[in-house]
């Protein structure tokens, strides 16, 4: 019976055990909290970094399948040890520090890039009781830490002593700050529904997942988070097949590896946050009684969202830079503002009605806004003049080879 109890909530069980142990050693209560927090943070941080190994393999494999390739398949069964081998290799690569770099930004940038992703894990609730920190301003924290990621990019570009890096960094950070705005406005709408900025309370208040209240909001948030992570189809800053690398051009060895890790981990982290805000996070049948189920539900939901992102990455062509800026400033931002205004107004009017009725009304409003937004865009879009290729039959160059036998010049 005791084992079952432990298995249903192992994290709290272990935490209690450690606290008990420290108490027996005669450690003061404040230090107990400190040590437990330290262990928790170390495990969570290391765990998040180790997840990246699996993520890199899975993403390469999935993209491979989507593009009709095999993906990594040499090392271990299905190439599962490929990222481990890559990591070992990148560990022993030489760190080339180019001449004339600005040392502090140059060395700080990869560290800040990874830290900005890891920090997001500190506020994610994994179950009713298990979470890093139940911060009451978690959403502001998420937005602020997102800004830290931009700082990493701009430091990398500025410090590299490379014009191309710097221009790429400016471009990447312009993209990131632009997409942060629709994201933040949508977050405002979820705060209206939940009445709290704490991620734990937002999850707890989702008797019906917010994606049914705000499908348009979820759409905007999803697109904005893809763009903010700089992934395809918004990966102009480091378009692999067109540019060298972008802001991380002058980095080599593990410093480059850190940007790589941050990129892959950020995709999954934003999927976790998306599923916490819009899909009900750890909530699911029986998750209150058996907290370990909360982990499983959160994992399943995040993997589905993350897979959608990878799917889009594998199948969509890249946008042009002016299109990308127009999408956020001329489509997503006005749409998000309209959504916020309408949700703020309507939710007040239907405050005391049945919850299902609220869902229905908001759903209809969301769909109507979505359709209206697309109709307006379609009406006012200025078609760029296309270069018309003449369809007239062109005169083929006549072969002058006297040995050619065919009359059509074959």
């Amino acid at each position: 019976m005791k084992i079952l109890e432990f298995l249903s909530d192992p994290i709290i069980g272990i935490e209690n055990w450690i606290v008990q142990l420290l108490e027996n050693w005669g450690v003061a209560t404040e230090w107990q909290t400190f040590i437990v927090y330290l262990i928790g943070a170390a495990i969570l941080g290391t765990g998040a970094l180790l997840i990246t190994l699996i993520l890199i393999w899975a993403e390469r494999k999935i993209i491979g399948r989507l593009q009709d390739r095999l993906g990594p398949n040499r090392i271990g069964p299905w190439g599962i040890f490929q990222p481990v081998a890559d990591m070992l290799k990148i560990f022993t690569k030489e760190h080339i520090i180019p001449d004339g770099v600005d040392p502090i930004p140059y060395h700080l940038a990869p560290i800040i890039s990874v830290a900005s992703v890891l920090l997001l894990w500190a506020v994610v609730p994994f179950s009713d009781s298990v979470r890093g920190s139940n911060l009451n301003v978690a959403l502001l924290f998420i937005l602020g830490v997102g800004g830290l990621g931009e700082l990493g990019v701009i430091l990398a570009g500025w410090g590299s002593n490379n014009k191309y890096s710097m221009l790429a960094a400016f471009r990447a950070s312009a993209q990131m700050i632009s997409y942060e705005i629709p994201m933040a406005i949508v977050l405002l709408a979820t705060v209206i529904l939940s009445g709290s900025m704490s991620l734990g309370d937002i999850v707890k208040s989702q008797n019906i997942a917010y994606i049914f209240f705000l499908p348009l909001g979820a759409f905007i948030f999803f697109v904005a988070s893809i763009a903010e992570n700089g992934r395809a189809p918004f990966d102009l800053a480091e378009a692999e097949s067109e540019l060298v690398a972008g802001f991380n051009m002058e980095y080599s060895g593990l410093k480059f590896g850190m940007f790589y890790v941050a990129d892959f981990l950020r995709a999954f982290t934003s999927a976790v946050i998306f599923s916490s805000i819009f899909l009900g996070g750890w909530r699911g049948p029986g998750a209150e009684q058996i907290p370990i189920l909360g982990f499983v539900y959160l994992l399943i939901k995040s993997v589905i969202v993350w897979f959608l992102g990878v799917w889009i990455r594998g199948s969509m062509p890249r946008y042009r830079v002016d299109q990308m800026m127009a999408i956020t400033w001329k489509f997503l931002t006005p749409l998000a503002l309209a959504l916020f205004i309408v949700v703020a107004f309507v939710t007040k009017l239907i405050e005391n009605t049945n919850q299902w009725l609220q869902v229905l009304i908001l759903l209809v409003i969301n769909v109507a806004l979505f359709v209206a937004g697309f109709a307006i865009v379609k009406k006012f879009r200025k078609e760029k003049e296309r270069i018309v290729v003449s369809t007239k039959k062109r005169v083929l160059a006549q072969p002058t080879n006297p040995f050619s036998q065919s009359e059509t010049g074959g």
Partner: protein
Amino acid sequence: MLNQWLYIGIFFIIAMFLPAVAIFLARILSPKKPTKIKNSVYECGMETYKPTWIQFKIQYYLYGLIFLIFDVEIVFLFPFAVAYGKLALFAVVEAIIFILILLGGYLYVWRKDALTWQ
């Protein structure tokens, strides 16, 4: 509440510490054979011409300013959204008017073509 921030502080230090240690270890493990050509800036294969920190496009500055305006607005609206449950309809309308004023500026920026990538 203070405990929650303590956790964030610890986590921040660990989040900076883990990549820093990894890079430091790799620095020790990796070979060091710098040469003059290897250490030169890559850029596009040519030798670098003139200083790196050049004047950049004014468009970025405009985007930065607009972003700042919106971000400040959002920070103002967060308390409103948290207190939403206790507000009357009138207060909600006031907040909407606040957004509409900002929307006026937004339309001005739009008409001035500051949002178009040039």
